[in-house]
């Protein structure tokens, strides 16, 4: 049995978050059962300034960026051009443009076909919305979105990663949000047109892909686990940032169940400072389904304990207490 899912990246549009599917009553992490992941590029549509070879080269650079993560086994293989369009449920992973003026805040989107008996990915297509202006220029182009940056984000989804909340935004007068800064390619809102800052993976992205597809010698990475509570009660959707003082990098996760439990994996051993914040820099539905109630009513808080990530193990249950605003 196959299931179709879609994840959009909005223009002003899932710490790292892994996708999960329910298989036989249990939650299974969404990932490819084997690598390399073979992908095709659609030659049925192009946009001004971006030829099919330009497009293929830009997405190849983005695939290579993910594949170059040394602690992860993820790998991709270009399978050639196809006349099929992304979104066609044909068993082939296809990337290309589609004209979707109706999606006026969606730059690109990834859809999945999942084997619901195993939770394994069968197909993942990425469409780039040709209603926007795109660029493949090395240094970027004013008022055009950088294809490589957006492809990097979507390929993160294609690989099984959800959105990260490591970013700060401000509301725009005309609606939507503007990114002030972010520290994850998987942040759900893209940088402004013209920016190429999204071409580089951050620690959060690297931890996420390492957690999903760990290299065998990455087995000494550890896990921070615990729960977030407010007035003694567990809260859902709290964003927990683990800051590494040795590298000044941040990796984050969410409290993801009714017990307020969180888990952040793919971390190198060593001390961390934890910071807990409400999910207030992006739309909650970029991370969670509408059926889930995310608690936003608490103050940003640092943990008063230094948390030490063990080598190939878990920290054990840590309780992080926050207070109402």
């Amino acid at each position, binding site marked *: 049995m196959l299931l179709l899912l879609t994840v959009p990246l909005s223009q002003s549009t899932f710490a790292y978050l892994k996708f999960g599917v329910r298989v036989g009553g249990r939650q299974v992490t969404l990932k490819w059962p084997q690598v390399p992941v073979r992908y095709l590029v659609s030659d049925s549509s192009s946009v001004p300034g971006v030829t099919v070879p330009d497009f293929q080269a830009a997405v190849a650079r983005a695939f290579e960026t993910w594949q170059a993560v040394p602690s992860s086994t993820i790998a991709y293989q270009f399978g050639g051009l196809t006349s099929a369009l992304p979104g066609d449920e044909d068993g082939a992973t296809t990337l290309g443009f589609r004209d979707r003026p109706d999606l006026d805040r969606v730059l690109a989107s990834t859809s999945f076909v999942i084997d619901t008996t195993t939770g394994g990915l069968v197909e993942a297509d990425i469409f780039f919305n040709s209603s926007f202006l795109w660029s493949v220029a090395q240094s970027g182009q004013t008022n055009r979105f950088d294809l490589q940056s957006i492809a990097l984000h979507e390929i993160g989804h294609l690989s099984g990663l959800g959105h990260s909340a490591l970013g700060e935004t401000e509301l725009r007068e005309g609606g939507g949000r503007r990114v002030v800064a972010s520290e994850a390619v998987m942040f759900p809102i893209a940088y402004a047109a013209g920016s190429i800052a999204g071409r580089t993976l951050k620690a959060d992205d690297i931890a996420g892909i390492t957690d999903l597809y760990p290299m065998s010698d990455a087995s000494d990475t550890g896990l921070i686990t615990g729960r977030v509570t407010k007035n003694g009660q567990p809260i859902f959707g709290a964003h927990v940032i683990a800051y590494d*003082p040795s590298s000044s990098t941040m990796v984050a996760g969410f409290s993801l169940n009714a017990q307020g439990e969180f888990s952040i994996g793919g971390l190198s051993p060593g001390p961390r*400072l934890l910071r807990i914040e409400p999910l207030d820099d992006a739309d909650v539905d970029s991370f969670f389904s509408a059926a889930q109630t995310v608690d936003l009513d608490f103050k940003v808080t*640092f943990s008063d304990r*230094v948390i030490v990530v063990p080598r190939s193990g878990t920290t054990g249950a840590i309780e992080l207490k926050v207070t109402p605003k």
Partner: protein
Amino acid sequence: MTRTGLTTAIAALVLCAGAATASAQSTGSGRGLEVGVGALWNGRTPLASGNGTETTSTGGAFNLFTTSTTLGAVAAGEVLVGWHLSHQFQVFVDGSYGRRQLRIEAANDAESAQPLTATEQLEQFTITGGAMWRFARSGWSPFVRGEGGTLRQRHEDKTLVESGRVFMVGAGVDVPLASRGGGKAIGLRIDARAVARSKNFALNPTKEIAPAAGVALFIQF
């Protein structure tokens, strides 16, 4: 000489010294065993100072918060067992144990989190081997010492154990408190040391060299 080679050489020296001690007690040539017990003080050590930064659309840095990380000062317990090869030259093995507080101070949060200092207790063990040269055969005796060995750090709740190398050089003075005859004494040893450690710990000092000071009561046999 490589660091591994140096450690091997010191170990060999200690073994040779052990062999020499057996004859020292019968010759009265200044050779003999020494045991010292004392405290080794290490000052507050800055480890890292960085910011939780995010990247702006132009590639610039946005400070989400700032941090400063330090190891608190510690007075570790120290035991030294030495073999005098002569009145002036001694080889030794030395062990120390102390608990230090790891502190991460967080401040200047862009979303108004209260400044806070997060802490944990860290246990530090050292085992070193080295040599000491005294400038006088008796009485108040200035000396220099050098040693190398292993530094082990155990984090709170035994979540992580880290090991690396530690090297120390120093100078001080032995103050005789009582004579035991045959050139042997009970005394007080005071010294200052410069400490360097390898960089394979999760958090490393910002400065290559850290100061330390030792005081110990020793007895010669």
